[in-house]
């Protein structure tokens, strides 16, 4: 059995009436209301989505895969990002290419539903092939399939 000890905290008449505290609370709210009506441009609320917050420089948004100057993906399918990912959201399939670069990704699927935006994949990449600098954070879709980004989607940005 858990013992219950009652601690007496007797309230005086002012406290028991509640009226004083209610009036004080209302005063604070009304003061804010008045300030917002008079000085509208100082209001901290942002009118999203018409108005958007300025992102910090190192904001981690949706990933993208970078390209070389000749338009081929920089990714060499080394699997370092897949290894580093704590959320297990990247899955790569590697293949061989006959011209130039030996190892290239045949598939690069990034499950944004699983992603925790930690940025470890970017840290791990030895080729600067994956970045999170798109500034995109409005990631929604009608079905789960559309939120698993493939190689072409990630290369487009």
């Amino acid at each position, binding site marked *: 059995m858990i013992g219950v000890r009652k601690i007496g905290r007797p309230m005086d008449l002012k406290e028991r009436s509640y009226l004083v505290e209610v009036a004080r609370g209302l005063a604070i709210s009304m003061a804010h209301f008045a300030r917002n009506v008079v000085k509208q441009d100082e209001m901290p609320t942002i009118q999203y989505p018409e108005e958007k917050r300025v992102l910090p420089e190192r904001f981690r948004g949706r990933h993208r895969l970078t390209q070389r100057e000749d338009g081929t993906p920089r990714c*060499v*399918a*080394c*699997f*370092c990002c897949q*290894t580093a990912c704590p959320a297990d959201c990247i899955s790569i399939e*590697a*293949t*061989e290419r006959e011209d130039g670069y*030996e*190892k290239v990704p045949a598939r690069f699927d990034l499950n944004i539903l699983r992603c925790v935006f930690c940025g470890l994949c970017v840290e791990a990449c*030895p*080729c600067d092939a994956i970045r999170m600098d798109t500034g995109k954070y409005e990631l929604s879709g009608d079905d789960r399939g559309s939120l698993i980004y493939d190689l072409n989607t990630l290369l487009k940005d």
Partner: protein
Amino acid sequence: MAKITLNGIEREVEENSYLIRAAARCGVHIPHYCYHPALKVEGNCRMCSVEIEGVPKLQTACTTIVRDGMVVNTESEKVVKVRSEVMEFLLRNHPIDCPICDQAGECGLQDYYMEHGLHDSRVTVAEKVKKKKRVDLGPNVVLDSERCILCARCVRFCKDVTGTAELVIANRGSHAEITTFPGRPLTNDYAMNTVDLCPVGALTSRKFRFKCRVWFMERAESICPGCERGCNIYLDRFQNEIQRMKPRVNPRVNGYWICDAGRLDIDWINTNRLLRAEEGGRPIAPEESDREAASALSKGDEVLLVASPSMSNENLFALKKFSEKVLPGSELVGGSFREPWEDDGILRLPDRNPNRKGMEAIGIPTGIEKALATSRGTVLLFENDLLGDQPHLGAKLEGKKVIAFASNRTATVAAADLAVPVTSYAEMAGSFTNHAGRTQPFEPAIRPEGEARPVHEILHRIAAFLGSDLNAASFDALRSEMLEKVSALSMAVPDGREAEHVG
């Protein structure tokens, strides 16, 4: 025995043994690349240099034979310095390929650099000597000359083990590289062992190339089902798929090698599998298939059970028990044998059935032709593809009720009245008895595909429907019962773990 002092501790070692081997037996690992316990010594990598008292210069431990009273230091200041410098030489022209190199993660250069190197490079990437990348040495082996450290393990393997001598080192200095003679590609039946031998990523397997990074894989100890040799293997898995097969050292059976045919024969484990029980092509639930099989057996017709020499001892034992205890009137014979191949004098033995000896020990007779000719009623085929392997026997199945227990979709499965999925050797524990009567256990490498179950479990369920207890549901209990009743199948203690070594 000879007495040597190794790093200040007096040790008794085998006389006339190489110092590197003697030290390994004492638990002292001397780093090395070109030395391999199964190959002739060459002493070209200089990584195993050690200090021997009374000898002015460092000696390579792989070419030095121990002598009584020898005082050896493997960790002296001089040795440590030389090791790091040897590493620097070996890495002088080594490309920065780790991200795309299949060896990364199990690479001798990576391991020893972290342990003995840790120097800053004095050359830029542009200064490194460029060589041929991606040379097809043969159908199964790809060479990257830039990564090669010229340890010549592969050259010695082809010269001394297979005797085919396809590989040679051509050119000199920084331009030296492994190559084949014109028109003589690396086609011997053991060529892929050079990939295992290669301490760096110079030789890679065509089949495994870029398939999976090695750090993702987990391995299980298994036995190759390719022939009656019973080579000890590792099965490496990733995402419930067998990615590759590697030899597991066992001096009593296969030494350090396995043949390419065995190594490449892994695709069937994950493809074309029978995933659900099917009755005339219609998928049914496992309980339903057990009940169906039981009701077919309870009709009192003549029953023929056909075992296979590819089944594990435990499954064969359960089947034998099933035929004696549950269906006393039935006939049990050993079935389809795979076509023999040639004994190549190295590992491959003619009989391609991994467990014929086990089947004999358990007491399952052969003679399927006669049994099929005389049988009238129901035929139960276990891991037998009669229609595919032996069509002349398959024809004798016509007009009979056929229940096929199979891991893969074969012609027989397609024609069977009832097909029940069973696990392949990679998905269950079991044992095979090899040509020399050595019973070797294997462990499951992956989870069963689909609704596949081990044969002994299915037999136990069918027996339960027929009102008897086969006592074969638990694998451990079944194995101990088998070992108790069939003394010829006592397990061998795996050998040769001590012989394993880095890179």
